[in-house]
């Protein structure tokens, strides 16, 4: 394998990707393509190729979701010999697990029907609104001969107004749909869709339909709503929860939003979901405190208590162990001799050792901050996404005006901006990833990849900020750099995904692995 073309074309089929094979995608290959990601192959990036960090997925619109549902209802309805309405209730009752429903229905038909609130067959007594002599509604306490009333098979009869209001409360306020129960006390009968048709009108009906569709997607393991605001699409992806240790299933919704199918968070390639969760929690808990500790405190050279110097002289006495030391050089105070209150002993041995110990004890904190600061930096840039995008558009217009280039010709700015944003998003998560990574050869390769991408991004970013009059001359170079960035990103993600999939990464903490299993399984 000596060119990038080979690398790109050696994509794997889905099955292979899901499995745990293919461990010969090894380090040897890595070094081959590492030093030569040539410019000559940039056009290959534009072609949609499937990389090992990408997963199969499909986006569905609401109509398609509805028709899926209808199809399944129809299918199961013919197998069970039940009305579609009843079948729909049964399916929802068993959370759209077709096989389980059929199995259970064949074995214990009556029980299943009872559990789903269908008791006896629906078609012998179609639901209808009646006036019953001598009736008084238990909910509103109204009575009267001409009062319209309704009851399902369970004979919990209430006046139609109360019934309607009850359904409205359930649907509108509580967002229930598939499992609304009879308003009667301790009655488990589910309000079936025929009864709902009768009682629910107008807007509420639409809302009800919407909620039903929503429970369908919620119940299906391989379907997930796009989390973008106001997005109506759902995404289907075959990645199971238990695979999330090894795969980061980023999907791309029709609406343009990239998100993780495993946890619905924004795209967090290459870090696995559990790591992301852990990192976010750590940052929430630690980062500010850690920053403050790092900036304002030192540890006692003897007992390592954290000490804040909030005033006074450099002669410190540790509250805890009574150790006396100099705040400046961290050396033992008694060795300061006559030069008290004027520390000039910086190179002395005891001070040096104390500082060394201090440095070690602080290493873990520094290590965390190292990764956190870089993570936060890229996150900050990601937050400016919108700004950058708007700025790009303005720049593109200016460029057209000043240089006479056409709109098509200035598109390179847009692709550069997009590449920058995407790469920064990836870089951000590489730092969280690296924080938890145990050190070995793989880590070094990972960090090299990270460094290359980071440098490529910074180069492009710098160029991107150049004044308009220089941009025209930089066009070719910028296109090269854009392609290079994209390429570096792909390499980093592919390499990481391959290693992750074959379980070759080791994490810093054993509990980390344990944790991942706990949260995922």
């Amino acid at each position, binding site marked *: 394998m000596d060119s990038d073309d080979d690398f790109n074309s050696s994509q794997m089929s889905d099955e292979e990707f899901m499995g745990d094979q293919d461990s010969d995608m090894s380090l040897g290959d890595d070094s081959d393509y590492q030093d030569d990601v040539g410019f000559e192959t940039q056009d290959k990036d534009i072609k949609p190729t499937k990389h090992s960090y990408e997963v199969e997925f499909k986006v569905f619109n609401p109509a398609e979701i509805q028709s899926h549902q209808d199809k399944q209802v129809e299918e199961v309805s013919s197998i069970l010999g039940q009305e579609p309405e009843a079948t729909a209730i049964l399916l929802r009752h068993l959370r759209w697990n077709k096989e389980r429903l059929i199995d259970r229905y064949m074995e214990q038909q009556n029980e299943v029907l009872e559990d789903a609130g269908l008791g006896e067959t629906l078609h012998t007594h179609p639901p209808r609104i009646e006036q019953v002599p001598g009736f008084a509604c*238990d*909910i*509103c*306490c*109204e009575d009267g001969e001409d009062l319209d009333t309704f009851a399902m098979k369970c004979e*919990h009869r*209430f006046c139609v107004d*109360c019934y309607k*209001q*009850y359904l409205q*409360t359930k649907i509108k*306020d509580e967002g229930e749909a598939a499992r609304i129960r009879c*308003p*009667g*006390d*301790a*009655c488990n009968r589910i309000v079936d869709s025929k009864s709902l048709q009768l009682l629910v009108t107008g807007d509420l009906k639409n809302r009800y339909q919407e909620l039903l569709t929503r429970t369908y997607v919620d119940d299906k393991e391989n379907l997930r709503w796009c989390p973008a605001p106001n997005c109506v699409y759902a995404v289907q992806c075959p990645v199971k929860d238990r695979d999330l240790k090894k795969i980061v299933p980023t999907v791309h919704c029709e609406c343009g939003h990239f998100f993780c199918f495993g946890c619905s968070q924004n795209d967090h390639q290459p870090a696995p979901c559990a790591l992301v969760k852990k990192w976010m929690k750590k940052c929430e808990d630690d980062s500010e405190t850690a920053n403050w500790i790092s900036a304002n405190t030192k540890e006692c050279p003897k007992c390592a208590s954290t000490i804040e110097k909030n005033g006074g002289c450099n002669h410190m006495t540790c509250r805890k162990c009574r150790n006396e030391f100099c705040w400046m050089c961290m050396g033992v105070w008694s060795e300061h001799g006559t030069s008290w209150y004027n520390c000039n002993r910086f190179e002395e041995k005891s001070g040096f050792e104390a500082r060394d110990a201090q440095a070690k004890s602080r290493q873990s904190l520094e290590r965390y901050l190292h990764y956190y600061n870089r993570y936060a930096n890229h996150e900050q840039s990601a937050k400016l996404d919108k700004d950058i995008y708007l700025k790009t558009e303005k720049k593109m217009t200016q460029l057209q005006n000043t240089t006479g280039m056409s709109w098509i010709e200035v598109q390179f700015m847009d692709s550069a901006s997009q590449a920058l944003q995407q790469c920064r998003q990836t870089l951000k998560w590489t730092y969280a990833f690296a924080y938890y990574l145990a050190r070995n050869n793989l880590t070094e390769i990972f960090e090299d990849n990270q460094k290359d991408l980071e440098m490529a991004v910074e180069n492009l970013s710098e160029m991107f900020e150049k004044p308009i009059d220089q941009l025209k001359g930089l066009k070719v170079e910028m296109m090269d750099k854009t392609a290079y960035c994209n390429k570096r990103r792909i390499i980093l993600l592919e390499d990481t995904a391959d290693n992750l999939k074959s379980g070759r990464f080791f994490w810093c903490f054993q509990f980390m692995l344990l944790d991942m299993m706990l949260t995922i399984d």
Partner: protein
Amino acid sequence: MSLSKRIIKETQRLAEDAVPGISAVPHDDNLRYFDVTIDGPSQSPYEGGVFKAELFLPDDYPMTPPKIRFLTRIYHPNIDRLGRICLDVLKSNWSPALQIRTILLSIQALLGAPNPDDPLANDVAQAWKQDEQAAIQTAREWTEKHAKP
């Protein structure tokens, strides 16, 4: 908001046909707000105590359940320090066909049958599970201390 026929009827019934051991009296200036007392059920550590509570009927009552809170301190795994009650019929199992009196009866029954497996006051539930006799003794002492008229 005007008072519904339902609330008027319920209030009347509560006054005319009172349940033994339970009272609920609406405030003069707010007929949706009730002062409630519940007698501790016999054969329970709360026996002999009279527990005060407040009850409020929200605007959409009876579609949504009444809000109830104990005012008297009580040592019980399903009732926390603020007097909030963990009871299914006050939440997910509420039915508009239930009434103030039925809810108060459920609460009285809860006093007679604490459920430490579904706790609201974790520390109490823990104590209840570890040493039921001791917990019952504590509940009795609290009843003596806080709930005697």
